[in-house]
């Protein structure tokens, strides 16, 4: 029997908008709306789109030792987050294996909010609870307190600002604002490579804000467009590009690890950084037709972890773990796509950049 899927507070709005709904890690989520994936992708690259990401989880850490506790479990240097700041980091196990990649927002002097991936939320929360020893900290699962909307695109900020009580926080900052009369935590972060904000608000407030954004011309966008957008800018996706079998160094996330803080797994990460890893996560573009997909083997070792047709670039793109010696920009790869060899070239991350030097 199929287990009951979880639904976000926006479920009815998605149905009314004609969304195609799919099972995404136990959540019934919109994969796309009526205009299609490419139209949604284009809306975010050129105008504004809004995603329901209420399936993502939140863990709050508060108390006198909140910073010390997060410094112990998160890979980045938590002491660098000012009040109102945001930081990307990894949650690693003792072997340096990736348990999740997450954003942490400092809401107050001793209060932090960490956003988890939906599929990992329960495990992340349990892991964090299990590693509080010696710290005067309260770790709470607050996922039920929040719906989360991601408004993304060059005009997203401007449109959200029209219904806000005051200017929105700058990039990589978070602040409380009143949005359409509703208490909202506005986080100037995202997963698309575009400017924009993520709005955390009470579940019963989410539909009104969503509908007002749509009324103002923001395109409802589903998880399929979220995937093509993030892959063009090479943001890793946990479950595809990241797993507990991989460490942050081979995943190219060493920049978000500060081993000097002594976080769980830091010894392994330090060694990996010093000695190198057998494989590395690279971005690639196919040189001819076709699309490489997750699980396609790379000839000579390694495999594709994410692959799609890039709506912006018009070619097959993706990310793959390949032997470190081949992980250099310009290297040619042969990928076995269901028995057909497709040629790809290792390319600089991000694969898509705005043409700003016109």
């Amino acid at each position, binding site marked *: 029997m199929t287990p009951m899927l979880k639904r976000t507070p926006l479920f009815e709005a998605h149905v009314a908008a004609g969304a195609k709904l799919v099972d995404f890690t136990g959540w019934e989520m919109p994969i796309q709306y009526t205009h299609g994936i490419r139209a949604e992708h284009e809306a975010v690259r050129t105008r504004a789109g809004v995603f329901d990401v209420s399936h993502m989880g939140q863990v709050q850490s508060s108390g006198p030792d909140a910073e010390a506790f997060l410094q112990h479990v998160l890979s980045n240097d938590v002491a660098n987050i000012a009040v109102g700041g945001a930081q990307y980091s990894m949650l690693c196990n003792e072997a340096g294996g990736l348990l999740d990649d997450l954003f942490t927002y400092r809401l107050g002097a001793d209060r932090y909010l960490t956003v988890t991936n939906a599929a990992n939320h329960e495990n992340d929360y349990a892991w964090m609870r299990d590693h509080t020893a010696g710290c005067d900290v309260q770790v709470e699962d607050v996922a039920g307190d929040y719906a989360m909307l991601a408004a993304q695109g060059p005009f997203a900020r401007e449109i959200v600002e029209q219904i806000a009580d005051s200017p929105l926080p700058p990039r990589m900052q978070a602040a409380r604002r009143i949005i359409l009369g509703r208490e909202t935590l506005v986080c100037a972060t995202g997963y698309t490579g575009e400017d924009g904000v993520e709005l955390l608000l009470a579940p019963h407030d989410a539909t009104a804000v969503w509908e007002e954004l749509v009324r103002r011309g923001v395109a409802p966008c589903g998880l399929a467009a979220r995937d093509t957008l993030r892959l063009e800018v090479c943001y890793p996706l946990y479950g595809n590009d990241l797993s507990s079998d991989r460490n942050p160094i081979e995943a190219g996330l060493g920049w978000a690890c500060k081993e000097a803080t002594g976080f769980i797994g830091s010894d392994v990460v330090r060694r990996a950084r010093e000695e190198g890893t057998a494989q590395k996560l690279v971005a690639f573009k196919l040189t001819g037709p076709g699309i490489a997909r997750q699980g396609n083997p790379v000839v000579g070792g390694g495999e594709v972890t994410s692959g*799609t047709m890039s709506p912006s670039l018009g070619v097959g793109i993706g990310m793959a773990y390949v032997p470190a010696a081949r992980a250099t920009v310009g290297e040619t790869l042969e990928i076995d796509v269901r028995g057909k060899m497709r040629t790809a070239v290792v390319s600089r991350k991000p694969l898509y950049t705005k043409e700003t030097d016109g």
Partner: protein
Amino acid sequence: MAEASYPDELLYHAEHDWARLDPAQPDVATFGITWFAQDALGEVVFFDPPEVGSSVAAGEVYAEVESVKAVSDVVAPLSGEIVEVNTALADAADPINEDPYGDGWMVRVKLSDPGEAESLMDRDAYMASL
């Protein structure tokens, strides 16, 4: 095309493929996928055609179509030899969604056994199977 449609003059295979017999040349047919198939796939971004001159067998895979999210096999409704492929789809596969019975046609096939057409469904039978 946004609305479901299943033209009356086509023959249908259960794997959501159609065949159009050429009245002038009864042993040549055009193949494509149905409205139902393209709708289930979503936006098709890549069509991987067979070689002209290769043979296809009824019920077997002769090409692949990929949408943004997934790859799908295309099954031949009838047997024969590929005499033409729709090369325009190599540059832009969207006619498969926009016009699945017109510009979205995939191959033309010289049939090895035109009698196989008897086993295909007409429009009403196919629609009843959906």
